[in-house]
């Protein structure tokens, strides 16, 4: 690890933040710098997804991946967002106020505790070696191939394990290599730590709009200390970044269904584009999110479904080029080897596969109490007739779990085991667990405010 590497990474992540801020300025704007500070995590995540997607698409069409491309794309996105936002009449933001009261004290305490944890994780990340099989067997080799050869080198991209996986992760790794001055696979862990920091910031910032601090921070801290979530933020694999995009998009889609603020759907679309270019499971998770959104917005389908249709079309258009590339280069597809659509196949694996996904979902050794608490929150939300968030998250977690069972069932080579080297179910189900961490405070806040509103209505 060198100072050059760390300074380079800082610059790269400022570019992600700037490009996301440009997009946020274009689609929404912000009234004050305090409001921007609240949404900066979301801007960062959107910046990673948008810039990462553009780099990936340019790489697929054959544009050489150089330092200039790494610098020009985020700068162009940031400037375009700022200029178009200005044309739309965005006002210069004021300073704003951070408020006061007990919520501020809880927030300060939560920030301090989260900061303490993330600082400890940084000390771990900055000198970590590359230990994870997926990381050294294909994610980082793909990144090195792009770095050294400037493009999707046919030899490596058709023969490495996971050759059908889309290349957004290698692409963001290469961007880090260029800014660090070389393929420094040790300092690369700091980049993934920064993705984790950005996600925690995005989650707390976006939820604080609807969730009081005393309901929010216990869940933020719980997700950080859950054995297979926070402590793995620095691991240089695709799973957690995929989950960050998925959970971010899910919250934005739910809030869009609740308040119809169109900027939320625009940013959710960008995160979904990032998802389908990060990992093949991204396609499944995007489909699951779309189904849940269609389900809960069915009552107002004339207004919501066309917008969701546009979202799906954009995401499909972004997902297509990589699929065309690997088919054209003779790489076996992303679909399950067992077909996966005929329930009459491998019937003996059907129940054990779904049982496995269910067991992993409720395993406290992976996710602490995140899932049982989320189930309790779901029950309370239903009891207070907060149907939209309850049905949305219930459907989403249920469909993700069914998807996990389907993956195991549809790929007969996968043993029915939680063993990490044999079956990806534990890594895949991280999406459901992280979703539970985000869903619980939303559901509890909805239940709490429903009771308060009903008491106020009764009193008047």
């Amino acid at each position, binding site marked *: 690890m060198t100072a050059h590497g760390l300074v380079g990474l800082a610059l790269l992540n400022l570019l992600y933040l700037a490009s996301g801020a440009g997009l946020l300025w274009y689609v929404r704007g912000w009234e004050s710098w305090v409001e921007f500070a609240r949404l900066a995590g979301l801007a960062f995540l959107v910046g990673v997804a948008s810039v990462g997607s553009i780099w990936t698409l340019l790489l697929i069409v054959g544009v050489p991946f150089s330092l200039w491309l790494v610098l020009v794309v985020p700068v162009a996105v940031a400037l375009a967002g700022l200029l178009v936002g200005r044309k739309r009449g965005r006002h210069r933001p004021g300073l704003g106020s951070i408020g006061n009261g007990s919520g501020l004290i809880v927030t300060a305490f939560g920030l301090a505790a989260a900061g303490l*944890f993330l600082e400890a994780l940084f000390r771990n990340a900055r000198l970590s*070696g590359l230990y994870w099989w997926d990381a*050294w067997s294909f994610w980082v080799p793909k990144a090195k191939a792009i770095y050294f050869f400037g493009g999707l080198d046919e030899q490596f991209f058709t023969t490495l394990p996971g050759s059908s996986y889309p290349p957004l992760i290698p692409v963001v790794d290469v961007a880090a290599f260029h800014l660090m001055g070389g*393929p420094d696979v040790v300092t690369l862990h700091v980049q993934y730590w920064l993705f984790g920091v950005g996600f925690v910031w995005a989650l707390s910032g976006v939820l604080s709009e609807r969730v009081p601090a*005393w309901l929010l921070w*216990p869940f933020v801290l*719980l997700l950080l*200390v859950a054995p297979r979530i926070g402590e793995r933020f620095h691991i240089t694999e695709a799973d957690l970044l995929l989950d960050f995009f998925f959970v971010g998009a899910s919250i934005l889609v739910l809030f869009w269904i609740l308040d119809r603020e169109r900027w939320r759907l625009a940013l959710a679309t960008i995160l979904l584009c990032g998802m389908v270019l990060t990992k093949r499971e991204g396609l499944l998770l995007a489909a699951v999110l779309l189904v849940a959104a269609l389900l809960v917005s069915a009552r107002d389908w004339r207004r919501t479904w066309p917008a969701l249709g546009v979202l799906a079309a954009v995401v499909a258009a972004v997902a297509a080029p990589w699929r065309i590339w690997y088919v054209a280069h003779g790489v076996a597809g992303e679909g399950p080897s067992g077909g996966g659509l005929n329930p009459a196949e491998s019937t003996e694996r059907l129940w054990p596969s779904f049982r496995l996904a269910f067991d992993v979902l409720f395993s406290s050794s992976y996710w602490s109490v995140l899932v049982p608490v989320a189930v309790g929150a779901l029950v309370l939300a239903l009891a207070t007739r907060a149907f939209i968030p309850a049905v949305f998250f219930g459907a989403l977690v249920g469909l993700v779990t069914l998807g996990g069972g389907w993956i195991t069932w549809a790929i007969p080579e996968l043993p029915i085991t939680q063993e990490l080297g044999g079956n990806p179910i534990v890594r895949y189900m991280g999406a459901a667990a992280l979703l539970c961490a985000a869903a619980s405070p939303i559901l509890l806040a909805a239940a709490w405010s429903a009771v308060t509103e009903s008491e106020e209505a009764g009193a008047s």
Partner: protein
Amino acid sequence: MVRVGVVFLVGVATIAAAVRFPAAIQDLGADAARNSALSFADREIAGGNGVVADQAAVYEARGRIPEDGTYHVAAGPDFPGGSDLTVPYVASYYQYFLMPRRPAEDAPWLICYGCDLEQYGGRARVVWEDDEGIAIARIQP
């Protein structure tokens, strides 16, 4: 009743986080101490330490094979050293470690893990070898 339920669930989450928090910080601190105590080679080779059997072999390969060169890793099934992971995964690890050098079946460089050098009919000139049964050879055309 709903409010009691909300407070209860927030309490459960708070207690679970509070109980786990010190141990998580301690675990991360221990990991950080372990990472910083590693030698440069242990940290750079990292996941390969359980695969390559001898760190010197990967450094020798990187030092001897030119960046635009090609190499082939041959692991004999009876290679006595390393671990259970060595024979199935050593070629994969070299592929990661030696980039931008490319693997190729007919490469002029051979990284031999207990392989049969006799099959090259005297064309294999060993340029480096260790006590574990690992050798780097130049294959004459």
